[in-house]
């Protein structure tokens, strides 16, 4: 009832008010861009870390499990803020785009120019397809539950296939040192990393693979399950941290 009455009395901003509101939009967007480039990138580097840094860490078990589970955190929190208060279904895409920008900057300047690694050895993974689908699910469903279950699952399940076109060619076999390696393994062997001995890599460790000799799909479904939980958790973290009390005063 009150909504109907307020709908009838609603008058959109025009003139100077509209211009100021638009300027505020851009101000927030620019700040959000730098905030998410820094914070999400830092969060990602500290948690996913080597799995995303190095081409010879991107295995079919841990990489597709760890990356979406960590990658869905900020998107869920930002979606909670932007969707609940503004009905803006771009939280996931915005976060992942910012992450991509930060990651590419780091790979080019820190890894390539500063530490001399070839960029192809430190290509980042992409989660943009997953983020687009997550935003679309939220917009179409307008439901936390549906987005957590279906969007969260899609976020994880799409990760490995959307990255295989980038990294599949690094899995071509090579014979070296009387053994079979991939091109990615050769990068790890040839391009010396003083603090990264081979044994540090976590490549298909554990018992997750013991189902019909498949690792990646099993890992992706495990990741999907955890992503549904992580999405919900981080949605509430986003809601908890965010406030619109300043907007209410306008």
């Amino acid at each position, binding site marked *: 009832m009150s909504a109907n009455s307020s709908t009838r009395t609603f008058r959109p901003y025009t003139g100077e008010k509209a211009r100021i509101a638009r300027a505020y939009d851009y101000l927030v967007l620019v700040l959000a861009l730098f905030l998410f480039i820094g914070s999400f990138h830092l969060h990602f580097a500290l948690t996913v870390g080597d799995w995303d840094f190095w081409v010879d860490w991107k295995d079919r078990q841990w990489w597709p499990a760890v990356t979406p589970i960590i990658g869905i955190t900020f998107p869920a929190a930002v979606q909670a803020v932007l969707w609940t208060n503004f009905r803006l279904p771009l939280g996931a895409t915005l976060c992942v785009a910012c992450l991509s920008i930060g990651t590419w900057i780091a790979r080019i300047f820190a890894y390539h120019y500063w530490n001399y690694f070839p960029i192809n050895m430190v290509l980042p993974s992409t989660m943009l397809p997953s983020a687009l689908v997550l935003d679309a699910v939220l917009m179409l469903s307008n439901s936390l539950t549906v987005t957590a279950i279906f969007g969260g699952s899609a976020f994880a399940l799409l990760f490995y296939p959307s990255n295989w076109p980038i990294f599949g060619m690094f899995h*071509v076999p090579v014979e070296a040192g009387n053994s079979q390696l991939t091109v990615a393994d050769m990068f790890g062997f040839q391009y010396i990393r003083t603090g990264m001995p081979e044994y540090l890599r976590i490549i298909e460790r554990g018992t997750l693979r013991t189902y019909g000799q498949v690792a990646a799909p099993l890992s992706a479904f495990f990741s999907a399950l955890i992503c549904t939980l992580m999405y919900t958790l981080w949605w509430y973290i986003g809601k908890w941290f965010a406030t619109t009390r300043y907007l209410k005063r306008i």
Partner: protein
Amino acid sequence: MKKLFNNTSMYQLNPSMVRQALGNCSMRCPTSCIHAVDHERIQQVTSGHSQKEYYSMNKITSVRPEPVEGQLEKLLKCLLFLGLILSVYMLTLQPVMAHGEKNLEPYVRMRTIQWYDVQWSQQKFNVNDEVSVTGKFHVAEDWPISVPKPDAAFLNISTPGPVLIRTERYLNGKPYMNSVALQPGGDYDFKVLLKGRLPGHYHIHPFFNLRDAGQVMGRGAWLDIAGNEADFTNNIQTINGEMVNMETYGLGNGIFFHSFWALLGTAWLLWWVRRPLFIARYRMLQAGLENELVTPLDRNIGKVILVGVPVLVFAFYTMTVNKYPKAIPLQTSLDQILPLSAKVNAGVVDVETLRAEYRIPERAMKLSLKIKNGSDKPIQLGEFATGSVRFLNKAVPVPEQSNAESVVAPEGLNLDNPAPIQPGEQRTVLMTAADALWESERLDGLINDADSRIGGLVFFFDPEGERYVSSITAAVIPKFN
């Protein structure tokens, strides 16, 4: 005074009034730091008048406090001083010349990987030239209890980034690509082939990464790589026979797919950002205009994304699978390479350590060794090597075969009985390894370790130059006076 300050802020005080109240006091801070005695004086000045009357009488409304004299100058001086210190610091910066090898606990350096005969094939070469480093190491029998056993070890090269690439690596003549399990007491020789990639002057060490233990550095060398970085090539052949340029392989493809998804993502963001966002949408949402915030067209685009993106993903995935049908998972394994037949403690010369004392004031390690010469020639003890330090007996000519750097005490080794040990003879010798290197190389820190034991290699030589190597170990007893 309390009354005054309660009724008005200090920003409303006339400076002349404050000065009058404070008299000649130099501390005229217009805040709560005014001395208690001055508070009383201010109260006396203002007594007898209401605050309003006083202001009216002095024709004041409000004034700002005067800036504190000299405060800005002090700040500037302080900044100038800090800038000067920073400048001196920056001007005296030196390139890093070490890899932290002295920081590792002495017992780890002495009693894990005992390097010797490290040799570089050349130290000046060009981009694309190959250089090899060879050498030997003995895995100490007396492996420290606090260091995990070398079940996974990685023979690495300490470089400032991949200024060289590692093309081949051998342990005991066998090529290997992964980590390896080492056996305490085992003897190994190694060879690593490297290729110059970036021109420069670099300090390079072979070293072992030991799982859960850290790095144990071998002897380093300065390498000079000349030439042009752009000339570097690194092509490898895949099993399918395709030649691959490792410097650029997959880069264009990766950029293409990242760009493709970035374009779609940017389009989606712009689709929303082009409209008024936060304040406008918030007000509309509060007004119940949710349907106008997400239009039917938005929903249709969302449906296209929901269907189209997964279809694209799986289309690209299928294309890649078809393009690289022989792709294999990343490979990882732990190589098992057996030690060589004994090179150290080979059974010809037996050495038993009876006692070890470290005399702190003299920086001298005194080791009582029971030596039995099982060879058919007289032998002399020519060298004791521990950690990164070599103590040489000047009475015995030690053939120098290594161009790798080592920290040497050329006259640091003395024996109580320098006479050669005859074939079949057993003798107890007091060996003294004395030099300030114990301190400067931070090996004397073992007296502070929970596991204060020493380990090292002793080298014997016969008249024909034949060398016999023995590993020694003992608990160290410090002597403080």
